[in-house]
């Protein structure tokens, strides 16, 4: 797949991910089907998918066991990534509470108190710091907890929670489930694919309703609940005449400090002395989403833009932290003046400058990075800068809390209007379209085809991660232009509320916001009593990372129909595939599907939504109910 995306002129001369993908062809068919096992030294083993060659590994493992173990390992890695992110936030909160993290503060006391009350803490006689310490330590314990169950599972509808209990997939502690997942995949351990999949559910739930949710909640406490705000996306958010810093990766911990540092007058003055108009920050991937949601910092682009961003010639410094960072960056940067700085001890890259970031020194390090960027601006002199495309406006900053406010104001905040309009049919259903970019798919086209098809059919779309950035770039997050893509019913609702048809809920850990919102919709009433009753569906049209598999699995385990594009990692295990695509629905109410054609993918989602509507009895137009006194008495 070539890069069809408008890219800076310089990118054509370099070998980027698309060229590297081409060089990889043909890619390993066994790997693609998930039937290659290298879990022990008797292997590697592979199963012949055509049934002619070997059907068992040396140890006797069959295709279903091998694919299931590989799948479970993907879940475990994905869950680890999200959860370790959550742990880092909890650690920061604790350090802030102990006043060991200068520069940070607790920006949202309201959320802290709300959370504390939910946890059963008594906020009354505690200072903010004391309360934050308690909440932070509680969160830390969720990771290492050995027994009992994760707290946030109670946020799910009761029926769902009971189902998890009944199926024995209630996670005990976050780390414990990851460890057990890895243990089970060790040679000669769990060799029954149903059993492996139930651990996949338990491990994934410890991500969605555990690590990811902790990350989201505590980031809101530290940095504020996102509020809707206007921003921009595309190469044009980089400015020819400013110091441009790109933050890329996943955690907001460092980027928040860079935002603070970039606003300091002496650093701005320094930048001016170097001939720049100011200091400009733009983001890539989920770090971008985090600071967009809370500060309106513009989006440079998503995963597949990380290399091309450098080829604009306008990036003075790119600070990266963890996850989804290509090792190729320093090599590409070497062709330009751009400085690549790694900041996390967990994520080092040869050729990059490493500036170790800690909470204790965060602001100081952030200032150092800004200073380096300013210095580096001087190196840009005379070199060509190419910023293709146009700046596109967007509105982002939606969260569970803000959606309720937006639908009813301070006095009537609730999900009632959403439920009412779903029941009434103006909104056909709600879809979560999330996930990565994958260079096997034309950049963003998978996301955009699905999203456009959905909104055209009156489905309200909730997005996170790189998928949201794709929609932003296409104007779908613009509350005026976005309406052009809507069906009439959805359009009327969007116009009434003033929202775009696609709501950006944040980074990939913020998929937990979708879970909380869905639970709130169930609670609001009229759409069944479990998440699996809702007319909703999920999709990751351009997925590539193991985090996506973990997210998909926790959505399925939460009762949501979930479709993935590009490829699916267990296709070589026929029984497992059949189980995940069909039978699992009888247990969990949700299931997986795989459809590489995005248009068909949207069709599957719509068909599922319609099926759910029919089950709820809201598939037909309803008579207006007029109330007389007797009916009022019955209320």
């Amino acid at each position, binding site marked *: 797949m070539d890069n069809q995306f408008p890219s800076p002129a310089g990118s054509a001369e370099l070998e980027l991910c698309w060229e590297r993908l081409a060089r990889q062809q043909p890619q390993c068919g066994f790997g693609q089907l998930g039937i290659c096992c290298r879990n022990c030294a008797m292997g590697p083993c592979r199963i012949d998918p055509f049934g002619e060659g070997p059907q068992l590994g040396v140890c006797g493992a069959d295709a279903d066991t091998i694919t299931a173990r590989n799948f479970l390992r993907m879940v475990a890695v994905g869950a680890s990534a999200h959860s370790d992110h959550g742990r880092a936030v909890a650690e920061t909160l604790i350090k802030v509470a102990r006043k060991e993290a200068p520069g940070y503060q607790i920006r949202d006391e309201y959320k802290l108190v709300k959370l504390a009350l939910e946890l059963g803490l008594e906020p009354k006689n505690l200072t903010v710091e004391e309360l934050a310490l308690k909440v932070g330590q509680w969160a830390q314990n969720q990771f290492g907890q050995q027994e009992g169950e994760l707290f946030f599972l109670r946020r799910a509808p009761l029926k769902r929670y009971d189902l998890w209990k009944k199926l024995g997939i209630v996670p005990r502690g976050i780390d414990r489930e990851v460890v057990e997942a890895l243990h089970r995949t060790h040679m000669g351990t769990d060799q029954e694919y149903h059993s492996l999949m139930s651990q996949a559910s338990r491990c994934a739930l410890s991500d969605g309703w555990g690590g990811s949710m902790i990350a989201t909640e505590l980031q809101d406490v530290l940095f504020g609940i996102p509020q809707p705000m206007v921003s921009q996306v595309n190469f044009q958010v980089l400015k020819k005449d400013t110091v441009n810093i790109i933050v890329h990766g996943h955690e907001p911990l460092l980027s928040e400090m860079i935002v603070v540092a970039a606003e300091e007058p002496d650093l701005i003055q320094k930048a001016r002395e170097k001939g720049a108009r100011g200091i400009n920050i733009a983001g890539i991937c989920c770090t971008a989403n985090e600071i967009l949601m809370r500060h309106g910092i513009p989006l440079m682009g998503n995963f597949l833009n990380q290399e091309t961003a450098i080829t604009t010639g306008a990036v003075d410094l790119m600070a990266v932290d963890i996850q989804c960072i290509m090792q190729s960056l320093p090599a590409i940067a070497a062709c330009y003046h751009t400085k690549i700085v790694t900041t996390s001890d967990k994520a080092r890259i040869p050729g990059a400058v490493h500036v170790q970031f800690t909470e204790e020194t965060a602001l100081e390090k952030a200032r150092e990075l800004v200073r380096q960027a300013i210095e580096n601006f001087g190196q840009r002199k005379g070199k060509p800068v190419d910023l293709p495309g146009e700046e596109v406006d967007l509105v982002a900053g939606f969260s569970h809390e803000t959606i309720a406010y*937006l639908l009813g*104001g301070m*006095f009537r905040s609730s999900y009632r209007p959403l439920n009412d*309009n779903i029941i009434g049919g103006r909104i056909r259903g709600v879809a979560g379209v999330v996930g990565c970019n994958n260079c096997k798919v034309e950049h963003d086209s998978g996301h955009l085809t699905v999203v456009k098809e959905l909104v055209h059919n009156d489905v309200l779309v909730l997005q996170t991660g790189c998928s949201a950035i794709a929609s932003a770039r296409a104007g779908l997050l613009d509350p005026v232009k976005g309406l052009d893509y809507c069906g009439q019913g959805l359009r*009327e609702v969007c116009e009434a509320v*003033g929202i775009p048809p696609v709501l950006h809920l944040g980074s990939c850990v913020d998929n937990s916001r979708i879970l909380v919102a869905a639970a709130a919709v169930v609670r609001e009433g009229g759409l069944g009593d479990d998440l699996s009753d809702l007319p909703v569906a999920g999709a990751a049209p351009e997925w590539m990372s193991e985090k996506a598999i973990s997210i998909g699995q926790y959505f399925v385990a939460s009762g949501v129909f979930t479709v993935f594009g590009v490829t699916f990692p267990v296709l070589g295990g026929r029984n497992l595939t059949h189980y995940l695509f069909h039978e699992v629905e009888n247990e969990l109410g949700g299931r997986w599907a795989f459809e590489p054609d995005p248009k068909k993918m949207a069709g599957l989602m719509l068909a599922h939504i319609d099926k759910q509507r029919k089950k709820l009895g809201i598939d037909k137009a309803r008579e207006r109910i007029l109330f007389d006194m007797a009916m009022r008495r019955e209320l």
Partner: protein
Amino acid sequence: MSKIIAAAAIRGAHEIVSEARKKWQQAMDKHGSGAEVGFPETAYYLPIIYGLSGLPVRKLADMEKVFAICERLLPEPVYQKVHLPYLGPVLDAGMATLFAEEMAEAITYLEHPDFYSPEEEAPEGKLWLGAASDIILRKRGIEFVDGTAPGFAAIVGAAPEEKIAARIAQELQEKNLYVFMCAGHQGTTFAEQLKAAGMQLGWPVRLVPFGPDISQAVFALGFAVRAAMSFGGIQPGEYRKILIYNKDRIFAFVIALGEVTDRWYANAAGAINFGFPTIADSDIPQILPTGVCTYEHVVSGVPHDQIVARAVEVRGLKVTVSKIPIPVPYGPAFEGERIRKEDLFVEAGGTKTLACEWTSSLPLNQVEDGRIEVIGPDLDSLPEGSQIPLATLVQVAGREMQEDFEPILERHIHDYLNYINGVMHIGQRDIVWLRISKKAREKGLLLKHLGVVLHAKYHEVFANILDKVQVKIYTEEAAVKQLVQQARAVWTKRDERLAGMTDEEVDTFYSCTLCQSFAPTHVCIVTPERTGLCGAFSWLDCRGSNRINPKGPNQPVKKGAVLNQKLGQFEGCNNFVRQASRGAIEKVSIYSLMVDPMTTCGCCECVAVVLPMCNGIMTVHRDYKGETPCGMKFTTLAGTIGGGRQTPGFLGHSKFNITQSKYLAAEGGIRRLVWMPKALKEEIMDRLKKRAAEIGLPDLPEKIADETVGVTEEAILPFLQEKKHPALEMEPIM
């Protein structure tokens, strides 16, 4: 597109808040921060602010906090290019608008105390009524509770011409809705248009002119907020409950006539918070998706001849009005009409002539359904200004009909005739007084039509017990005389039967949960010796109503085992109340004010309160505005105990109940009564004397203090001691 509405409403809200603030600052300079402010005769301060924020505004200085809330609520203007979501912010802007306007109106009351008339109808030369007092609220509130008024229309602006205004108003009246009016359009107002069209205005005819500006919309919404607090039992500050209560139970809507200005939009946004949609005649953008309101939020471009029907539909209201074939409009809204001497075409009764009304039952074969006879001259052969003898005899028959139902049916004649536009009816039996207006006569009204009305309404309301109804209307002196004599004999017999009934001789009481539409946990238990606290339902009424509508709000309650005879606790009653209040009330004493007293919906005619120092009990009725020895006015009392709560030491009851033998029986009956307003005492004096004599205390009425003696316990105690009030000698009440 609703962005236009959002932008306009937010602009309007900013204007209104900043203007109100200016007005407040000027008032502070002029009157000082300690100057008292408030609406007349209310325990709810500025009711929207009090209800939704919990802040009582008593003085000008108190407004500072409220303005601070307004500032927090006021959103940024809507960006033109890429806007942020505006629905939530616009709703907040609407609230800021209402808060600001309510404060501005309070300042108007301070500076121009005579601008509004406090009465139910404005006197000659005045038009605007301003905020309703709590007395009006309770009196009218009952109509909202029992369904005689299913809701209200807030009309903003003015119609293109008087005729259209009159037609819209009349259509709303015929649908039994209240019409609240404010603001104007093109130099006139809806109220002025109705007046010019010759219509009577005021609370009695449900056409309420609040004021000439948009800011008087707060009087309509303030009425709604107070209804939620006084009938719904919701505490001030519980804003969500108050608003949801209004969305679910108060069927109100806004009709905007004329150009919708930024300020109108701001007020409409405020109303949407209550679930009250706006229906406009002009071509403004619409907001059709549902959610904050039950159905659409803004519907526009509705032609005047459809606007009422459309509004009712958009609000989700079912109004069932049977069309009665008479030449004048008909409905409860015309109940309060006055007919002055100069408008009079004919009158009967009222000490001027002999007149009576009588309903009696006959065997089925002796009644010809639908037969309406006028025996003697009808209006078309009478000269203007006549005074005529009149007897109305309604004869009914039905397989389910019983003699006991006759008085119930008969009492309804008053309502049914009063509902005729152009007919004024007062009294019952042989003390009726009927007036018919010239206008009604001009439209073709005849006495025959009174029969048409009674025939239609009896069939409509009492279908379960009646099969046939015929009406005879006599206007010849001799015939009327004869009929009155016949009827009197029947009435005497009836009264004797009723008066003799005791709780002990029946095994079944009746419930009344009519008010649960407003007060969901309230359950009345009506017994032969304890009529309903609203004064409208006796045990016989409830029994009749149950026969008429077996699934209705009056259900038989088997007394069951007597748990405590003195308190009047019965196993059957307790079980019923527990179930009907959905577990909120566990036990109820039918005869006690101190132990598990009955709940109150808020509709009670009187409230009795224990006075510990006097070892007695006082009672106060709704129309008494002054202070009482318990330290609270009636309205505060009703607000405190209303909404279906059980409050030991306080009891809602009817006026009639005071002289029934089981009144406060557990505490010693009327021997305990130490204070009541003079007017109430006078009203029930005959019966009070009789009851006092029955218990061997014929001079008790003189021993009961009233406001002329004092309005504190300290002030009345010496009086009681001097008069040797029996309560002082009784066992301690607490």
